[in-house]
């Protein structure tokens, strides 16, 4: 097969036919498809990058919000603690006042009871002293003298601070 003949021209012709056929049947759609795919991937990459950026921003915002919320919670807790302390102080003060009042009342009552007892005691002493004097002195004193003495005694006794 070393001799040349018209097969050479025929093979060039065949090749050109194949080239034209493939150019329109295969290469055009393949090139378009590859271009589409490249665009698609580039688009996807760009979108992913954009979304990543947005996610980063969102994350930072959430972190900031959370920090703010935490600070607010701290402030609320501190406020509540302060209010509680004040209330406790008030309650203690009220309790002290109440106890003082109760104590004063009790003292007053005691005073009153004491006076009452003194009065009763004084009456008893009068009767007893008259009886004792009567027993000691007996019949030597007339009723008139006796009456005067008793009156005097009572007066003196009334002046006594009991």
């Amino acid at each position, binding site marked *: 097969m070393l001799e040349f*003949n018209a*097969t050479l021209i025929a093979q*060039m012709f065949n090749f050109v036919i194949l080239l034209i056929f493939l150019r329109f049947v295969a290469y055009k759609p393949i090139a378009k498809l590859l271009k589409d795919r490249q665009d698609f991937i580039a688009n996807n990459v760009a979108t992913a990058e954009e979304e990543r950026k947005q996610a980063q921003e969102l994350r930072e915002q959430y972190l900031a919000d959370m920090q703010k919320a935490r600070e607010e919670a701290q402030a609320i807790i501190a406020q509540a603690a302060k209010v509680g302390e004040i209330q406790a102080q008030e309650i203690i003060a009220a309790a002290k006042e109440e106890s003082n009042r109760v104590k004063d009342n009790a003292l007053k009552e005691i005073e009153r009871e004491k006076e009452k007892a003194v009065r009763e005691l004084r009456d008893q002493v009068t009767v007893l002293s008259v009886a004792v004097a009567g027993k000691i002195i007996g019949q030597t004193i007339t009723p008139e003298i006796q009456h005067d003495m008793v009156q005097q005694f009572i007066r003196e006794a009334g002046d006594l601070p009991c």
Partner: protein
Amino acid sequence: MDLHEVEESLNFWHFPHTGAWHLGTVGNFPIDLNPKTLIVTWLTMILVAAFAIVATRNMSMKRPNSAQTAFEMVYNFVGGIVKEQITDPIKAAAFLSIPVTFFIFILFSNILGLIPTLTSPTADLNTTVGLALTTFLLFEFMGIYYKRGKHFKHYLEPFVFFLPINIIEDLSKPITLSFRLYGNIYAGEVLLLVILGLMPPVLNFCGGFVIPVVWLAYSIFVGCIQAFVFTILSTVYVSQKISDTH
């Protein structure tokens, strides 16, 4: 066995491989065609076209099927070579379909010849010279198209008396391209016949078929390499002609 006897015994399809088709004469020049070469060339063209149609039918951008993936791989592979050589993307895109066709056509041709009873279109010097001449016309044409008058000026560089050397350089390109491809593929087929002819038939009953099978496997490798070499050299020649520095 004689080589021609082996070849004749393998001629399952009764190719008229000794004669030629005479299609008359133009002037004094006879129009003769090698029937076997043309038949396998048409077969190759049909296979390439079928592959292209199968690969590009129902194309999907996100879920390509296997044929589409294979075609895309070839297209991207040759596209990568072309883009390495031709940096201008517009020129590369305009040129790309030719090396891709070279690659697919030569690859299918080389592999087709390994099927028993068939022969490679590229085992005929007419085919390889035809393809190499296509390359030659292509780089001359593209040089003129992109560089206009500067294309012819470079034959006179660096000095005027370099003209014959430059012309020989350009002429040697299609010759080396065609003879390299023809020699590799034709030698592969001849050696296959030689191996088959050398082996006594009794050897086939005790594993003798391993030897030609190994050679067939190696020929697949050679076929791929030669298709690649032809494609990349054509691309390099064209890129030399259309680059601004030349």
